């Protein structure tokens, strides 16, 4: 079994260093990049499935600037087999439409049984790329996965999809594209051995020409959206600190809620 995992380097949300540059785009120099949190959950699931199957490979597919291999090594250290990086100067400033096109085009150069993606990324949080890739690739799309169970013999995959009131159990033939959540399980920490091994794992770089995408269709030139303005949010009011005994403190809370017409 071969599983492609879409992984995105994102500014570390815990760093507090995320900011926009003068062009309204992410200033990548100002905060360390990490593997997107939701991508780590699907990567963990992919690794577990390959381990359980006893054969196969997990291929990372990333669209990012040329510095991405540094972050991809972290995912390779968890156990992914190899990486494919789509990187091209013309991609800078790409929107979600272009991202989906590029990833779908890159997928068409790979052979796989399943494609995994996190349901969204912590930097953009749009959550629209995975369904977009599925639509462009014309593959079955199974989203918001809490569980993923492939059946290699039947060449089908079953997913428990999180909905507003429970779960839908979805089943599709492979190959298929699945977006996954944290409910898939805690990602492993890379072992020292894994970190050493990752250094020599293969990362193939593809340009736009390699995947047959016109530079004018992506990046700033092809963008359908633009950031027009940004500002710091209005500061919240001062924090009222209550140190009274529980009964008195409870009354203070109720008074605040009543003043604000919440109760």
């Amino acid at each position: 079994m071969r599983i492609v995992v879409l992984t995105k380097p994102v500014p570390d949300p815990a760093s507090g260093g995320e900011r926009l540059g003068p062009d309204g785009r992410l200033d990548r120099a100002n905060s360390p990049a990490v593997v997107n949190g939701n991508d780590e959950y699907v990567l963990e699931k992919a690794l577990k499935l390959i381990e359980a199957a006893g054969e196969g490979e997990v291929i990372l597919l990333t669209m990012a600037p040329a510095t991405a291999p540094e972050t991809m090594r972290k995912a390779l250290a968890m156990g992914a087999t190899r990486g494919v990086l789509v990187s091209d100067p013309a991609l800078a400033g790409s929107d979600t439409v272009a991202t989906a096109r590029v990833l779908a085009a890159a997928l068409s150069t790979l052979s796989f049984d399943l494609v995994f993606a996190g349901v969204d990324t912590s930097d953009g949080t749009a959550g629209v790329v995975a369904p977009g890739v599925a639509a462009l690739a014309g593959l079955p799309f199974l989203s918001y996965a809490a569980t993923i169970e492939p059946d290699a013999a039947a060449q089908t995959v079953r997913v428990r999809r999180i909905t507003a009131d429970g779960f839908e159990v979805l089943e599709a033939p492979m190959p298929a594209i699945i977006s996954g959540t944290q409910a898939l399980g805690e990602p492993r920490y890379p072992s020292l051995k894994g970190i050493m091994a990752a250094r020599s794992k293969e990362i193939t770089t593809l340009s736009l020409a390699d995947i047959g995408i016109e530079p004018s269709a992506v990046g700033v030139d092809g963008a359908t959206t633009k950031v027009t303005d940004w500002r710091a949010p209005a500061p919240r009011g001062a924090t009222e600190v209550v140190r009274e005994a529980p009964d008195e403190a409870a009354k203070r809370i109720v008074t605040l809620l009543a003043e604000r017409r919440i109760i």
Partner: protein
Amino acid sequence: MAGIWVHGEIARDGSLTKLSTEAATLARSIAADGAREVTGVVIGAEPAAAAEALAEFVPRVLALTEPMTADHAAGMIVAQRLATLVAERQPDVILIGAGPEGRDLAGALSALTGLGVLANATAVRATSDGPVATHSVFGGKLITESALVSGNGIITVRPNSVTAEPAGTAGSVEVVAAAGDLAQPAVPIVERLPAESKAASIDDARIIVAGGRGVGGPEGFGLISDLAAALGGAVGATRAAVDSGWIPYSQQIGQTGKIVKPQLYLAMGISGAIQHKVGMQTASTIVAVNRDPDAPIADFADMIVIGDLVEVGQALLAELRARSG
């Protein structure tokens, strides 16, 4: 005839989702200058009830019956039907709720039509160059405004961004026929399973009472649930509480959980680490109960009660019950 479209999402019971009523209210406000028409679109196996409900909010609703959504994953199917309608009728802007169903729909619709997406708008205003959306990004550290380059595209709307208000007069429902085949593979729903808990959804809750590691265990969430019930709210949790198995993932708020915007967020034993903060800091009112006066949440809560969450929680529960009784 161009205009503003709003997608009416059908809930499992056939009703219109609350998020769609909010998006419809927002659609009306963008078109308030009267220059553009607002149209609702409801697509599903049984669209009638949701279409009638949406007509309370907008002057005209298109209702398209698509039997496939009864037992197949809906997003990709609805996206294809909607893409055909968009190609035929050329709306300027399509508003879609930014919940899981809406994101699947928006992503597929964007890919099928080539229209761009302004994601997770907390507000939208009309300008002569098209709509401008406001977003909260980087965990609330920054407010951005963004526009559609061509003036046309898709906007996903975050829950609780506006208060839903029906229009003065109800609109009409126009039944439209599905045209053409569905080219994308449909994914069958082979079974439906109930949620692990009967907990109310946090997605569009007006009040959320949330617990973190400080709650101490699954029994501790009993008090959190009681407080939520007394306030008419839903129970939320941090990732630490979810990872400990005290409460299901569906209730998790934060970076890898849900982003919520309730009127009241009552944080019980939650330190307010950045990964959690990104999911709740736009709540209108934040009240925290924490032993540690230096917890990060003290920096952005409206009120922090320094104390034991069980003692304060029980006192608050008694106070709320006395008030309602």
